[in-house]
């Protein structure tokens, strides 16, 4: 195995709040190799977002160690090692769609002419060609989410962190984007860490599925998902697929309590 | 027989400038005349003619220029008595600036009171041939606020003062009389009549009102007479009536002393028509952008009340 992109050892994180400490992550151990597609799944509040934010240096772990590309998360962030897709689109309303996708390129000092070309290519990839001059609020929720994905892809990071990017989309669009994402991943060899609530989506996309459980947030199962690189949508009706899905469902149910 | 109500509106805040009225009040002179007098203090924003037009007073203390102006503006005030014979208005200059005579004023910055009090000044400047519109050949005019700060802080070469008040604030500010050059408007022949008593013309057709005012003027003049003879006690009475609690005894005693020099209590407050004519001539010769009066008024004074007071 090549040097892992992400290596977490006994990672833990405690939020101090007024009502006392909240243990969001506890004893997380996880290695992610280059080119892997890892899904994080688990009930609401189990720490999926928190884990992603620790990797992205948006939150500091309070215990254990974590390395991103062999460096600290902060060094990785400053080296612009990753692209992050948030759960909400977080587009700037005063910028056009093109302007939003060009934003990271602007911050990173890429020449003006190149910016527009690269941003336009990404927008085409998510089926948003022709909407460059619109403002975010003139687009439906699904289109906004796609724009935010284009924005994360625009500067071609080797590592993609995606937090429920397809949560607000309807089934058909979601299927379509799942296929696109899989193609992109296969073509570019990126490493992807992906948070989702949907079991079929996790099984369809991942090489490995990490099941988490709350109170305190910890990893309860890591499920290999060896469906091979070539996955048409119909694979979701095969017994192999359904078997993995069932395993994930059971792992999930084990860690679930209804009052969350 | 119940006392008759009279409301008096002063021109300025409670101070020895109005001692006669407070004395008449405090020593029961009004009560003895069968009057129940209420004295309302004024202030920089209070225009007594406005107050009397709004029926908030029966009689007001006012300077003649403002009283004549209000006649032209539809509030026909009539002078019924004139306790102040002489003008206390002056221009006070820092001597170190080299100002010795009125001719030295050319090119200087002067603090002037506006709000109707600028006409003696304008008449004076017109007589001296000094433009007041800011040209270098003339004088630069500042609208002076309520105090003498512009002089103390060297923002102006001269400021307006009253003999009885602001002049002493300059002295308190660290100047000796020798360090000041003083021009009295009276000496320059452009003095206008100050604190007189005025009522609305329409009410003078009521003989009962004239009689009541007669008693009021007589009691007031008795008050002034007493104040002139007992300045320190009068200052004390003024202080008792100061609701703002800001006046000092020393200053009020000094003021009473100076006020006494401006009074004429011998005629029972009878207006000298010659003084009146001089005031009107000064105002008509003053020019300015918006003249305070445009023609000589008629019926602006009467001796009916002082005569009734005898």
């Amino acid at each position, binding site marked *: 195995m090549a040097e892992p992109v992400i290596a977490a050892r006994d990672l833990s994180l405690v939020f101090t709040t007024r009502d006392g400490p909240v243990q969001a992550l506890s004893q997380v151990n996880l290695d992610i190799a280059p080119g892997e597609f890892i899904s994080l799944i688990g009930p609401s509040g189990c720490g999926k977002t928190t884990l992603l934010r620790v990797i992205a240096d948006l939150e500091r772990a309070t215990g254990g160690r974590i390395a991103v590309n062999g460096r600290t998360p902060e060094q990785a962030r400053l080296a612009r090692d990753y692209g992050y897709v948030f759960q909400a689109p977080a587009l700037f309303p005063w910028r056009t769609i093109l302007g939003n996708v060009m934003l990271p390129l602007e911050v990173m000092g890429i020449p003006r002419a190149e910016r527009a070309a690269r941003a336009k290519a990404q927008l085409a990839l998510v089926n948003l060609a022709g909407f460059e001059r619109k403002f975010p609020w003139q687009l439906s929720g699904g289109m906004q989410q796609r724009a935010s994905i284009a924005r994360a892809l625009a500067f071609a990071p080797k590592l993609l962190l995606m937090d429920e990017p397809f949560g607000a989309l309807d089934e058909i669009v979601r299927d379509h984007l799942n296929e696109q994402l899989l193609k992109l991943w296969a073509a570019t060899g990126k490493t992807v860490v992906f948070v989702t609530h949907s079991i079929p989506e996790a099984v369809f996309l991942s090489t490995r599925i990490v099941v988490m459980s709350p109170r305190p947030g910890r990893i309860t199962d890591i499920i290999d998902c060896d469906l091979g690189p070539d996955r048409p949508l119909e694979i979701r009706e095969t017994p192999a697929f359904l078997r993995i899905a069932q395993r994930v469902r059971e792992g999930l149910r084990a860690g679930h309590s209804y009052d969350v | 027989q119940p006392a008759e109500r009279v409301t008096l509106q002063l021109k300025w*805040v409670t101070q020895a400038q109005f001692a006669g009225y407070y004395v008449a009040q405090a020593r029961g002179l009004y009560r003895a005349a069968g009057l129940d007098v209420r004295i*309302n*203090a*004024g*202030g*920089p*924003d*209070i*225009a007594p003619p*406005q*107050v009397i037009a*709004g*029926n*908030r007073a029966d009689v007001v203390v006012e300077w003649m220029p403002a009283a004549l102006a209000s006649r032209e503006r539809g509030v026909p005030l009539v002078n019924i008595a004139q306790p102040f014979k002489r003008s206390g208005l002056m221009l006070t200059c820092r001597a170190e600036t080299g100002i010795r005579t009125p001719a030295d004023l050319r090119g200087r910055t002067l603090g002037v009171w506006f709000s109707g009090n600028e006409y003696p000044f304008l008449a004076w400047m017109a007589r001296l041939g000094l433009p007041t519109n800011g040209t270098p050949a003339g004088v630069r005019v500042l609208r002076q*606020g*309520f*105090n*003498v*700060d512009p002089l*103390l*802080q*060297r923002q102006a070469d001269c400021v307006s003062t009253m003999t009885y008040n602001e002049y002493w*604030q300059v002295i*308190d*500010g*660290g*100047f*000796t009389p020798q*360090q000041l050059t003083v021009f009295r408007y009276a000496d320059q022949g452009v003095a206008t009549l100050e604190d007189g008593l005025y009522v609305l013309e329409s009410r003078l057709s009521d003989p009962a009102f004239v009689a009541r005012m007669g008693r009021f003027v007589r009691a007031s003049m008795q008050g002034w007479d007493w104040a002139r003879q007992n300045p320190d006690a009068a200052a004390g009475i003024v202080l008792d009536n*100061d*609701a*703002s*609690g*800001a*006046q000092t005894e020393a*200053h009020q005693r000094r003021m009473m002393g100076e006020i006494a020099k401006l009074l004429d209590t011998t005629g029972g407050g009878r207006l000298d028509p010659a003084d009146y004519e001089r005031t009107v001539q000064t105002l008509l010769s003053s020019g300015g952008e918006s003249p305070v009066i445009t023609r000589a008024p008629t019926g602006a004074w009467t001796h009916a009340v002082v005569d009734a007071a005898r």
Partner: protein
Amino acid sequence: MSRAVLPVLTVCAALVALWYLGAVWMNWQLVADAQARAGAAPDLAEMVRLTLAQPRPLLPAPHQVVAELWRSTMTLPVTSRRSLVHHAWVTLSAALAGFGMGVAFGVALAVAIVHIRALERSVMPWIVASQAVPVLALAPIVIVALGALGLEGLLPKAIIAAYLCFFPVAIGMVKGFRAPDAMALDLMRTWSASRGQVFWTLRLPASLPFLFAGLKVAMAAAVVGAIVAELPAGAQAGLGARLLAGSYFGQTLQIWSALAMAALLSATLVGLLGLAERAVARRMGPRA
């Protein structure tokens, strides 16, 4: 709370230091002139001492203001006309009366505007214009005109204070009454709730943060309004009268102590509103 104490103290200390420097700098000429007239030539330390101890300074030193405040509040009986407490009370009563009237009018106006659309279109621009009218210019006229109607004493002052403070309340409350989102309003509609029910159960609770923001601004405005109204009311009593008399007699210390008292008064009142806001917020869910 305690996290704010150190920064506030530091900034305060910096301001006081600046103030002392400013006092020395601004009063220098005054002292130098006076010394020159007296023919004296004091050294630097003496000069500084003198600049901070002028009876009529251009800018009084902080300790002078504090001493004057102490003298005029603590060493005199509060009923005395020389006591600043007495004058603060006169201003406070007018400000509170005006505040009550202004807030009532502002809220009523906002209620009317939210419910009658024609009113917003026709009246709102004039309300903005009314705020561009200088009150101080109108105050004497208002006082005399109200006097002609037989209103005097506290009421004219309160009306001027109310004129100044209804605007922020009205603007804020229009925003606040419209703060409930469309979904909450639709929800009430699905239950065919009456206008009154929508107002009491939805619009009013949703507007409370705006109400308190508006109330705080209005409170400060009411104090200013009461002070402004005291200038033409014959400079009788109140902080405005003290300011005027101080200015009239060149008593800088008296001006500054009246000013400090006014600021203290508003700050206390605004602080009390803040406490009330917290109490209400606690009743409406302890998150805040």
